[in-house]
Each structure stands twice: as C-alpha cells, then as structure tokens.
C-alpha cells in the first residue's frame, strides 16, 4: 500500500518529499550519490533570464542550529538551464518544480513563459522572497500588492501551475498569502529564509561578503510551523512546507501544521542522504502513529473535524 502519494496542482507525487530550491543545484551532484527517481519532486535552483554569478564569497556562515547563506541567485541563465540542466533531468521520472526569480516583473514573466514549456517542468515556484539580492527578490515578497501583481503576470503566461514562495520576513504572513491566492496562485511554498547576520570576532565585520544572509535550518523550524499553521487556515490552496526539516518527525510536524508536501533544504548539507532516509522512514513512523496515509496528517493541529480512519495514537 502506498502511504505517501500526494496529488497537488500539476504535481503527481510518489511521496511528498523534495529537495528545496538552491540546496540541490539541478540535481547533477546528488544524482551521483543516489537514484533521484525515489524523490517526490525536485525544486531546482532559481533561474533568472540572464546568467548570474551571484555574491562575492564568503557566502555561507554557520549559526546555532542554522546557517546563513548569501549565494545571490547564481545560475547559468534561462537559455542554459533550458538547454543543459533541465534535459539532463529528463532521465528521471520525477516532476521538476522550476524556481524562477528576477529583478522586475518582466524577468519573472520571461522565465515563466519559456521554462513552463519544458516537458518535465510540472510547476513553477515563484521566488519573491530571496533576501540576498539587491533588486527584486524580497521586495516583491513583502508588499501584498506587488506580490499579487507579479503572481497575476506569471499566471497569465505560465503553462503549468504556479506556486508562490513566501518570505517569513513580514509582519503579516496571512495577508501576503491571501494576496497571492487572489492573484491566482495554485499553491504556496513556505518559508524562505529569515534575514540574519553574523560578525567575525577578530575583525568586527560581517562574516558574509554580502553582509546579511538568509537563515535556514532547524533554528527556524518553529517560525515556519507557526506561519504554515496560520496560513493554511486562511487560504484554500495547498502549501509545500519547508524550514529546518531534518527528520521524518519534522515532516509530520509540518503536515500537522497544514502542509500537504514538504521540501528539505539545509539538511542536504548535513546529510546528503537525508531525503532517501526520510522517504524510507516515513511509512514506519506513520504506522507507529496510527495513520494509513500521510495525507491524514495535514492540518491535524487545527482541523477539529479531520477524520482519521484508523487512528490509534
């Protein structure tokens, strides 16, 4: 019996576990470590119209139970992604979610129009929440009016469903979620990183060349869980949750909060085999908790009327 298959707009997932954007490149390197066919989906690195080098190094710093990154959306650009990176992923029977970014609405539109035509791209992830670039990125993700506008523009050209990636660096996450839902988003992915910083003891200067960076890893999990809990009760579109997932237990906690699938980011650096491990452990854990299928967990924290056919926990 399959306890893990999940259907979401555009996405027919064997299981709800996928690597998060930016933490898995375009799959090439991890493909040398294990068979990517076991993944539910793959969220590839952000693509912009033009190639980008990104920020100067150092680009990562460590924090307590977390890390800061300021990669700055380095990517080979739309043309190369379509020519080299996505075709290579065709060998796998895994839906690709293309993360798209840019400095202005037209950039998003350009990338969305082209990349959504690629056959294995089953959904787009609109990155309006990258804290590490000067233009675009997070500015789109903190103003509900702007966020809605870019969502509408992308929806108008995309041939596949559009998921919008929300930034946690806002006062009111529900307002942001509702704005992009109104703009036509088919789903949400959340959360992107929290803006953070570290200084070097000796020089007194920021460790990251970009000064600030995005905080990810277990440190931010409680914030992610809280936001998904709030948003999932206020919108009618599904949520792919992320932020600090390291274990199968964490996955269940995100489902309880209201997620319908999850992405694993930073954990891939701590343990490159974390995705296969979680996929293997989930059915065992679900059985132990008394569930027949992982979908029974979604929103269990707030959904008083959820029926659990076989709940023994």
């Amino acid at each position, binding site marked *: 019996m399959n306890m893990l298959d999940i259907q979401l707009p555009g996405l027919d997932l064997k299981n709800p576990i996928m690597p998060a954007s930016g933490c898995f490149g375009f799959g090439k390197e991890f493909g*040398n470590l294990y068979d990517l066919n076991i993944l539910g989906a793959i969220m590839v690195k952000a693509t912009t119209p033009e190639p980008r080098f990104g920020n100067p190094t150092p680009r990562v710093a460590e924090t307590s139970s977390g890390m800061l990154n300021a990669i700055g959306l380095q990517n080979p650009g739309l043309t190369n992604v379509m020519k080299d990176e996505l075709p290579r992923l065709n060998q796998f029977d895994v839906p690709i979610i293309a993360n798209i970014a840019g400095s202005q609405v037209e950039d998003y539109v350009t990338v969305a129009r082209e990349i959504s035509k690629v056959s294995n791209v089953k959904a787009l992830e609109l990155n309006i929440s990258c804290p590490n670039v000067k233009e675009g990125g997070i500015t789109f993700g903190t103003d509900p009016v702007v966020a809605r506008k870019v969502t509408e523009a992308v929806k108008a050209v995309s041939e596949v469903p559009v998921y919008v990636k929300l930034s946690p660096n806002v006062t009111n996450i529900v307002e942001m979620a509702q704005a992009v839902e109104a703009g036509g988003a088919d789903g949400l992915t959340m959360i992107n990183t929290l803006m953070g910083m570290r200084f070097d003891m000796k020089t007194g200067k920021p460790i990251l060349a970009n000064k600030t960076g995005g905080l990810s890893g277990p440190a931010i999990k409680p914030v992610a869980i809280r936001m998904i809990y709030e948003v999932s009760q206020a919108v009618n579109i599904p949520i792919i949750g992320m932020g600090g997932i390291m274990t199968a237990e964490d996955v269940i906690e995100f489902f309880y909060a209201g997620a319908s699938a999850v992405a694993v980011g930073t954990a891939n650096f701590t343990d*490159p085999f974390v995705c296969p491990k979680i996929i293997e452990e989930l059915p065992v854990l679900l059985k132990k908790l008394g569930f027949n299928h992982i979908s029974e967990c979604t929103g269990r924290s707030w959904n008083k009327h959820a029926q659990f056919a076989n709940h023994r926990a």
Partner: protein
Amino acid sequence: MIKNEAMKIVSQQEIAESIYELTLSGSLVSEMNQPGQFVHIKTGNGYEPLLRRPISISAIDKENNTFTMVYRAEGKGTFLLSQAKNDTEIDVLGPLGNGFTPEVAISGETALLVGGGIGVPPLYELSKRLTKLGVNVIHVLGFQNAATVFYEEKFRALGETYITTVDGSHGTKGFVTDVIDILSNSYTTIFACGPTPMLRALESAYKETKEVFLSLEERMGCGIGACFACVCHTADDPTGFQYKKVCSDGPVFRAGEVVL
C-alpha cells in the same frame, strides 16, 4: 565514488599546539586515490554544529584501510572533533574534490612543495607519491611559531625541508617566500597549499616560469558542488559569470585558472 561512512577512530593525538593528527579506518579509504582531496566531516551528533567541516586527506594507507588528517582545533567544530575518543565513530563524507596530480612532475626532476600552517597536511601524501615516482622534492613549510610546527621530521625523511616561522622561534624567521626567494631555481613544478596571500604571491612570481598548482580554501555548504557556496571567478572572465567550484572543480587549480 563519494561515500558516506561512520569511520572508526584508530588514533587521535595532539602533535603540536592545538594541532591534532587523526587516523580513521573504514571502507571509504578504498575510494581515496589522489593527494589533495578532502573529506567533509560531521563533528558533532546533534544539529550543532550543523555544517560539516572540510579537512584535507594527509595520508592514505590502503593496506590498513586507514587515512590520516591533520587539523587545527580552532572553532566549535574542530574543537569537538579533537575531543572524540578512540574507537568511537566519525561521520565522514568523501573523498571530495580534485586534488594534486603528482604525475605532472617527471621522474628525476625536482618539485617544490610549499605549505602554510594547516595547508601543510595535504602535501604529505603528495610528497610520498612524488618521491615514489622518482621526483625530487623540496619542502618549504611556514608556521606561526615553534609551538605549532608539525611533521618536520616526516617531511625531512622524504626530501630537503625548510621551516619558517613568523616570529623566528624555529627555522627561518619570516614567510615561506623569504626562503623560496633564495633557493636555487632547480625545480620545474610548484605545489602549494596555504593562506590565500601566500598562494597569490606564488602565483604572481612563478606562474610564467613554472608549472604551479594551488590548493584553495573557501567556506563550504554541501562540499559536493550543489550549493554554490564556494565558487570563484575564472581568470579569463574575472568579472563575468564563468566560475569554478572550489569543492568539486578544485580545491586544486593550476595557477592562472581562477581568480584568487
């Protein structure tokens, strides 16, 4: 192939001030072939430290299925690692990256190996390979002071060895370049690992006249080429978007290949 293994500690000892030599055993050793490659180590059990630590392979012993690293216990992760006891296990990912190719040096010729501080360890396996290939080796190794000097005798056993210390407490006072400047110019190849200013000095002085190979350091996330944490510009496109990843294209590059 890159593998992930819980490897057993065969021995760990402090061989100089805050400098530890750690030998691990496990089947991962059979994947290790090139000097200058590194491993990515999980230094604690929980989520803190969260990231692995890149440490060079300093010696490979295929017969005993062991390899050795030499590292400085500095921050949180390396300090934790230094506390690990014999017979416990360490989570190792590796071997990673592209190391030194000893074969570029020709038997009978002389190679100069230049190391600075914790850049010295990978040169040890390299030097063993070179001498086995019949290459003559000269080592110039720089340290802060006498207390942090390590492996002097081991290198001496393989070839001519010069030590420098910043404070002059051992060997020549000054930097490695001070010794190299007065060495006879008999070598054809330079292999170097150490702080970036040292690598830059070697590159600008010898790029044109010698074969120069440099091992770089950069802060890393994944260590396998997927996260773009460790990129550097290529020399032929220094402000463009061409890049190399230190973790998977390097850490060893030919001088002039990337921007230091």
